[in-house]
């Protein structure tokens, strides 16, 4: 498949308005404004576009749920927090094709009847913010944003809001809290943001990649879009492949592609380097279960990966070779979750710390067989017992490594040490200087 979201990104100044207009930029918006908002929502529904942020929820449904009877203003909030470990696709879109996102935001606003879209980017994206704001200024100066766009009477503004280093801000209600100037902690649901979102107003929260697909659907039609991939998994998809591969990066493909092709294909990540063997793959960011090498022929679509026992999530494929100790891996990820837990729900706040301590103990060779069982028990008491999906995400690294690699945990206990000390690991425990 020819790239659709990232067609010209390697060209110089691909991010400029001139470059975008040369490739039919903002024509989808011109077309959208000749339709009614309901027609746009129907188009997005018919296309089968599913949210690219992780959950894969149909975007058209999300927009339809936005309360139109409310007298309050409505908002589009673009989730550009991109904080799931292994994910770096939205960065490319915002840096090299920002006008596609701006156009997607504006069409989204028109569809749900909003006048303002906020793009919430993560704090570490300082350079992205500069580019995105410059692009927005350019679009506004030429009349693609602002008042009475294309003489249609439709007003739209897009603003960038920079976060400050909280993974939890990627959760939609926590993101709204953060945008309201509070701690990024999730809200109880329902009510969902479609009824009670930003400032208590009806809001649609969409991922960057989701919104960049919207102009394609409007320009070329929902049938064309749906036919690009397998049933219910239409459209182009960006995959982030990182870890132990020769050529890590962002690859655009239809969801007909398999994980093997993405990881081993010459056009894609090029396989595991240094003659090592593939040990495990995390197919959708650190929060999803591990897949084993014999599952590589799984199609990289939402439904097929779910059927294989994992989740496509944000399509962040982390490849691990046979130098990786799985107890170390769980410890590394639990350090992340322990650090990023927002502290609102007790099982997650306490459980992540317990899991990290148990894993540190086992990995350091001081664990007992009971600790392995205790780890599973703590994980199961976090999983599904929190307001947002963070708890499930944090329990997953422990549960999935225990499921597939329990023998490694037991070997640590028996040997009293980690037997897989790869050369890329710390020579001494970090912080022990």
């Amino acid at each position, binding site marked *: 498949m020819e790239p659709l979201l990232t067609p010209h990104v390697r060209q110089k100044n691909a991010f400029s308005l001139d470059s975008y207009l040369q490739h039919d930029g903002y024509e989808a918006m011109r077309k959208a404004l000749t339709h009614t908002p309901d027609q746009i929502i129907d188009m997005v529904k018919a296309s089968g576009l599913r949210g690219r942020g992780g959950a894969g929820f149909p975007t058209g449904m999300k927009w339809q749920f936005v309360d139109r009877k409310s007298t309050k203003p409505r908002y589009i909030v673009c989730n550009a927090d991109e904080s799931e470990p292994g994910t770096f696709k939205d960065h490319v879109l915002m840096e090299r094709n920002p006008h596609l996102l701006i156009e997607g935001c504006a069409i989204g606003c028109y569809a749900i009847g909003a006048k303002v879209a906020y793009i919430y980017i993560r704090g570490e994206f300082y*350079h992205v913010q500069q580019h995105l704001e410059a692009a927005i200024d350019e679009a506004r100066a030429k009349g693609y944003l602002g008042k009475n766009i294309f003489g249609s009477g439709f007003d739209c503004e897009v603003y960038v809001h920079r976060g400050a280093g909280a993974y939890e801000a990627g959760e939609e209600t926590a993101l709204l809290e953060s945008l309201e100037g509070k701690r990024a902690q999730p809200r109880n649901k329902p009510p969902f943001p479609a009824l009670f979102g930003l400032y208590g107003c009806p809001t649609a929260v969409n991922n960057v990649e989701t919104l960049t697909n919207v102009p394609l659907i409007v320009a070329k039609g929902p049938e064309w879009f749906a036919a690009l991939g397998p049933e219910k998994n239409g459209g182009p998809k960006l995959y982030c492949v990182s870890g132990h591969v020769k050529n890590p990066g962002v690859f655009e493909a239809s969801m007909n592609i398999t994980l093997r092709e993405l990881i081993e294909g010459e056009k894609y990540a090029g396989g595991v380097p240094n003659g090592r063997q593939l040990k495990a793959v995390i197919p959708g960011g650190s929060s999803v279960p591990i897949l084993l090498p014999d599952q590589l022929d799984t199609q990289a679509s939402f439904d097929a990966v779910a059927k294989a026992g994992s989740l496509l999530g944000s399509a962040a494929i982390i490849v691990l070779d046979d130098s990786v100790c799985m107890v170390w891996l769980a410890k590394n990820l639990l350090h992340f979750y322990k650090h990023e837990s927002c502290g609102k729900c007790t099982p997650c706040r306490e459980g992540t710390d317990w899991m990290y301590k148990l894993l540190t103990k086992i990995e350091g060779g001081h664990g007992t067989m009971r600790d392995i069982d205790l780890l599973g028990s703590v994980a199961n008491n976090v999983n599904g017992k929190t307001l947002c999906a963070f708890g499930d995400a944090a329990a997953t690294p422990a549960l999935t490594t225990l499921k597939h690699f329990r023998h490694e945990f037991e070997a640590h206990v028996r040997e009293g040490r980690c037997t897989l000390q790869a050369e890329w690991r710390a020579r001494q425990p970090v912080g022990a200087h």
Partner: protein
Amino acid sequence: MSFHPNMAYDARFQKSVRELTDQGEPFVYTPENLAKFQQMIVRYPAEQKRSGVLPALYLVQYQQGYITGESMRYVAGLLEITPADVEDVVTYYTMFFRKPVGKYVLSVCRTLSCAVNGAERLIEEIAHALDIKPGETDKSGMFTLLEVECLGACDRAPVIMVNDAWQEHQRPEGVKKLLDDLRTRGEASLTGCHLVKENK
């Protein structure tokens, strides 16, 4: 006391580890920053000024390097919220500093994709070269070393964020050069994100 027979809680666990806020000198924005603040705040509905708290705090941090009690009170006044509301936010987000940091803050990503490409070694080498532990500032006051979680640049692992600029594909053996370059040429020696670099 421990709830588990085989696991001792840290002694620190028993007492509050909350650091007292540095009150600092009386704080006001420079005229340029005040102008930036006023430009920023109109993006939010008039009755929702509180939304501006993160951008307002960034302006404070760019102006004086870290966030003091006085500056939180000043921001609270501008946004018409309480100083406690502002402190609530400052203490939550990891990118705000509540004590002085070095001229260059080296934030090394330690999460999975960077870790399997050598981030742990990188942290060791920087810590050794500067004779500090992660979280500390070196004696010269030039460098602060932080271990941070995923920066979202996993295809260019391992990554260090130097202040706001990404340094990609860092190697343990390149640490000395990175530090020397920063000492002699400052931020001009940084390459930044590859997407920005490729366009030049």
